[in-house]
């Protein structure tokens, strides 16, 4: 791969860059507690929580582990687990 002059990149290329490797804490949803309200989907700055067949699921390939979802979840259904690498 050659680098483009001035670092110009076309749209959509961020899919190729799995930012999940930046994470040191991993959000885990406890589905026994989850009410399916969708607040975590709203707040996730990386837009990696989505309703997949009626269940909120996290795409760990891109989740940076910021913890916003766990902070905002009203029923504390999300736990941040330390991931030592």
């Amino acid at each position: 791969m050659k680098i483009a002059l001035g670092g110009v990149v076309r749209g959509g290329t961020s899919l190729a860059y799995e930012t999940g490797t930046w994470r040191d804490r991993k959000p885990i949803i406890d589905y026994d507690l989850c009410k399916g309200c969708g607040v975590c989907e709203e707040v996730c700055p990386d837009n990696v929580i989505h309703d997949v067949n009626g269940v909120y699921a996290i795409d760990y390939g891109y989740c940076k582990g910021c913890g916003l979802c766990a902070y905002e979840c009203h029923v504390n259904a999300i736990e941040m687990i330390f991931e030592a690498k």
Partner: protein
Amino acid sequence: MGDNGKTERVLEGSEAVALAIKACRPGVISTYPISPQTHIVEALARMVVNGELESEYVRVESEFSAASVLAGASAAGSRSYTASTSQGLLLMTEVIYASAGMRLPFVITGVNRAVSAPISIQPDHQDAMSLRDSGIIQIYVESSQEAYDTHIAAFKIAEDPRIALPVMVCMDGWILTHSYERVRLVEQEEVDRFLPPFKPIHFLDVNDPKSWGPIADEDLYMEFRYAIHDAMQMGKKRIKEIFSEWADISGRDHGGLIEAYRTKDAEIVLIAMGSVAGTAKDAVDHLRTGGKKVGLIKIRCYRPFPYEDILKAIQDAKVVAVMEASFSMGSEGAIGLDLKAKLYGRSKTPVVIDMIAGLGGRVITRGTIYKIVEQVEKACESGAVPFEPYWMDLKPEVLP
């Protein structure tokens, strides 16, 4: 040589620059006034208001914004221009680094003025030196005529796809911007032929979205930075070609990356940048009449640093006296540092002595230059090359 530039006028330096910019047909001009740059952007404002120049004239609230507008306009595919000086150039610094990294070509007039504190609105080169390492090409001019010619060449240099970098044309405040001089102008058709409309390599396009300069980590950052340096190094040849192409059109040849003035057989070679080169040429002529083998190198293009050409011009010299209008606090003048670095470890090199002269507009007359030559001769006779630069005409009695 062409027989052009028949339109001869007596112009203030700022007006000459504004006419050069007008002839380049910039799509966007961003401005924030600061002395001694103001007359340039005022002249351009008048041209836009009077309908002589069709350009988006953006008045901004700071130099940071002025530079940001240039970056945005350039990314959108517009030829863009601004002028600034001193604190204004310092405020632009962050954006200039980013713009060079994003390879956005635009042109800035860097009107040279001292930097605070204390406040001084008088000329020296410290402001431009703050951008030394940013990736902007820096070209210094000696006269209003050279300023006029160089600005037109500057757009062509910046926009050359092999270079693709911002260019700053540096001219001494007041001495050039506010004095009147005979300036020969070139016909619009000639400028148009020399400088066709800007064809960006990439440009912002809603149908083909792109980002400029996003993150590059340890795996690629070095390569991006090297690419800027490489474009500058390789660009030297292109810059010379563009200068000589313009010389053919205008009938005026100001030199290449440097102008070597009576350096052949010179034992003492002075190095200077900007308007002081004119005074230095007079001094050299006078000293030559008196039998002293003195010459001058005027550095036109400071970044990229034209060491190949300088080394060739000083190969037979005994001593090189670098006149520095800026100073790296705790070290020495920037040109001396550059030159010594390139000379080190080579055989038969001349002695380089740093002469700090003209900070904050301290006047440099021919007399100052005679004193510099005397000082250099004394140092050579004693065989003791000083570690510390000489501060010409310093008043030690007033130091706190």
